[in-house]
């Protein structure tokens, strides 16, 4: 047993660290570290930098234009970029639809779409959930009817993250209503610029716009954009959900947030002394740190044990990863004391002329606590993840 990185892994870490130090734009890093609002251009700028280096899809196999990083290397990349304050990579293209296309896509889809994702050309969003189909995804109703060499799509998706920026959406649609519900679902790649698509914003409780409703009215989709076989969409979707969950552990970002929390606790005062010296608060910070340490080792164990799509144990990572993310936002909010109260969306940009209200790190934190209630809901709610473990792992 040896928990240290190999010499090659350590060298890779240094290489990534040096690259990030030299190339991550300072204004973007500041936004991430200070929890300000990121615009599309912020994500795009960073992803362009990585694409140029050939690292945007570093974890993809070499045959698809990636670097063929091992899972451990990918973890190192994630941790180093997160620590420096790089924005998260938008996962919908890179980590969600790409593995599905690699596994089940046609040669044309691989050629066309994978290269456009790898070069940060196309932005993708995920069209699974519908108003009546959240946890019970297989009940989805959006219809795709074959008509010669295209499908006609009608229906509605919802909660579609960043659809307002997307060029493409991958959708689960119903192509057959006569069979068992899982068997009538197909996986379609749809151009967001197609006539008949309307995107309507959903405002979240922190008054931000990151999710949308997407309406389809007689949208024509070429049959060439069907992934794999008709009626097999559910199988592909389940394959994808495993990929979604490993990323969702978010260990790198949580380590960074833990550092930020400690920094805040050093500055905040309680009875004239640093809040971080308060035994009660220090113990609660330590508890999260311990959980995170365990999670990191669990992630490494999962990564070390398999190179392929993660199995049901990925649900553990989703559950613990999101609980830790929420605990961190909660402690940051509490650390502020009464300065958690001011709500100033106008302070979410860097170049605000605005006079400070409270410490400079204060403004986004309570809003962020509320926003982060989402993480135990999306990507398969934590209740659904527990159901998966109960059934698939424990045999209950």
């Amino acid at each position, binding site marked *: 047993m040896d928990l240290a990185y190999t010499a090659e892994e350590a060298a890779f870490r240094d290489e990534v660290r040096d690259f990030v130090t030299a190339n991550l734009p300072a204004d973007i890093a500041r936004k991430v570290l200070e929890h300000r609002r990121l615009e599309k251009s912020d994500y795009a700028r960073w992803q362009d930098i990585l694409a140029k280096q050939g690292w945007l899809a570093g974890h993809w196999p070499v045959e698809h234009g990636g670097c063929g990083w091992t899972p451990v290397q990918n973890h190192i990349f994630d941790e180093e970029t997160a620590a420096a304050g790089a924005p998260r990579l938008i996962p919908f293209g890179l980590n969600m639809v790409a593995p599905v296309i690699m596994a089940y896509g046609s040669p044309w889809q691989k050629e066309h779409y994978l290269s456009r994702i790898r070069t940060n050309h196309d932005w993708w969003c995920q069209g699974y959930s519908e108003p*009546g189909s959240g946890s019970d995804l297989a009940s989805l109703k959006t219809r795709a009817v074959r008509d010669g060499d295209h499908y006609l799509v009608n229906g509605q998706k*919802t909660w579609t993250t960043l659809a307002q920026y997307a060029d493409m959406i991958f959708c689960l649609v119903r192509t057959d209503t006569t069979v068992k519900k899982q068997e009538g679902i197909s996986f379609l790649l749809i151009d967001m610029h197609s006539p008949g698509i309307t995107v309507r914003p959903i405002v979240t409780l922190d008054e931000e716009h990151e999710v949308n409703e997407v309406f389809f009215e007689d949208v024509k989709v070429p049959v060439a954009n069907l992934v794999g076989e008709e009626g097999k969409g559910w199988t592909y979707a389940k394959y994808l959900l495993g990929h979604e969950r490993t990323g969702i552990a978010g260990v790198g970002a949580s380590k960074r947030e833990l550092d930020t929390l400690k920094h805040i606790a050093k500055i905040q005062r*309680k009875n004239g002394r640093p809040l971080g010296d308060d035994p009660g608060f220090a113990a609660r910070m330590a508890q999260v740190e311990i959980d995170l340490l365990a999670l990191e080792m669990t992630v490494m164990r999962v990564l070390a044990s398999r190179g392929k799509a993660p199995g049901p144990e990925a649900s553990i990572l989703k559950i613990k990863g999101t609980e830790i993310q929420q605990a961190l936002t909660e402690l940051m909010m*509490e650390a502020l*004391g009464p300065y958690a109260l001011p709500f100033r969306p106008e302070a979410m940009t860097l170049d605000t002329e605005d006079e400070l209200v409270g410490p400079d790190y204060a403004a986004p934190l309570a809003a962020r606590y509320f926003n982060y*209630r989402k993480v135990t809901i999306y990507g398969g709610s934590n209740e659904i993840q527990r159901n998966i473990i109960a059934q698939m792992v424990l045999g209950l």
Partner: protein
Amino acid sequence: MDFSFSEEQQLLRESLARYVEREYTFEKRRAIQRSAEGFSHEVWSAFAEMGLLGLTTPEEYGGYGGSAVDTLVVSQVLGSGLVVEPYLASVVLGTGLVARAGSTAQKESLLPAAARGELLLTLAHAEPDSRYELAEVATSARRQGNQFVLQGHKAVVPWGAQADRLIVSARTAGGPRDAQGISLFVIERGMKGVGARDYRTIDGQRAAEVKLDDVLVGADAVLGPLDGALPLLEAIADVGAAALCAEAVGVMETLNAQTLEYIKTRQQFGQPIGRFQVLQHRAVDMFIHLEQSKSIALLAAVRADSADAAERRRAVSAAKAHLGRSGRAVTQMAIQLHGGMGVTDELPASHYAKRLTMIDFHLGDADFHVERFVADARG
């Protein structure tokens, strides 16, 4: 033992609840929040007419001489309707302080007008580094002949930019954390040297950073004992905390009802999600939190006016700590049970969740009150 409310209290609750249900719709609340001042004069006048604003004002100053239990009745209904108007700031804290400690002249000039809804009061006690400690006062009040000069920064003052009069804690003697040497001053918002930077709070209300820059006031601005106002400040903060607990109970009651309704109607997997046992147990936990919260909020209200400070502090700290923890747990479950809908601005439940969460950040959070509970018990 008698847990029943008086006939007057029941009438008060019913008429206020009727008003809130009919007039204070969610859409109206939204419009009020977006207005320049962030609260509605029309609603405030209606409250004055119903007698709410003079509820605890002594009768000789145009009020009803009510108790903290009357305040509980009102606060709970205001919580249920998620009413944003500055009841706590102006009536419970502001009026409460003047009624307790004001000179005859102060009472005459402030109380009847406040009860009629013509004068808005607030209490400015917190400072940038004071967290929840009432004794931590760096704002200074220097004596200058017969007058005082106030200098300092009051933080997150509820309705600080809307209030006509601010009751400010300032140091007239001692060091920044001494219990002795704290005095209260009534200042006018429009006075020279008073700056109020208004902002929204995440629970839908308003607050301000109040800067006092060489504010000159007369000796008649002193409220209560010079140098010795801390016990008074602590007493009124406890009355306020008890009212917040009652409000939290009202918020929680509605949030629970909304969540229960949601899981009974939302269908997934061909059945209402409320059929899933794991969600049933969450709903049960929310219900138990509510019942326990009701009980302890009642205890706090009954003890809030007590002349025995130790008895008062114990009950209020117990209640405020309990509501802080229960409020947090209930909101997290309520949002989770709503799924994606729970994190939308559109849904009233998310606004109830925000208020319930943020009540913990007013007048001492759960940690603060647990620590005070422990420290008092040690003696």
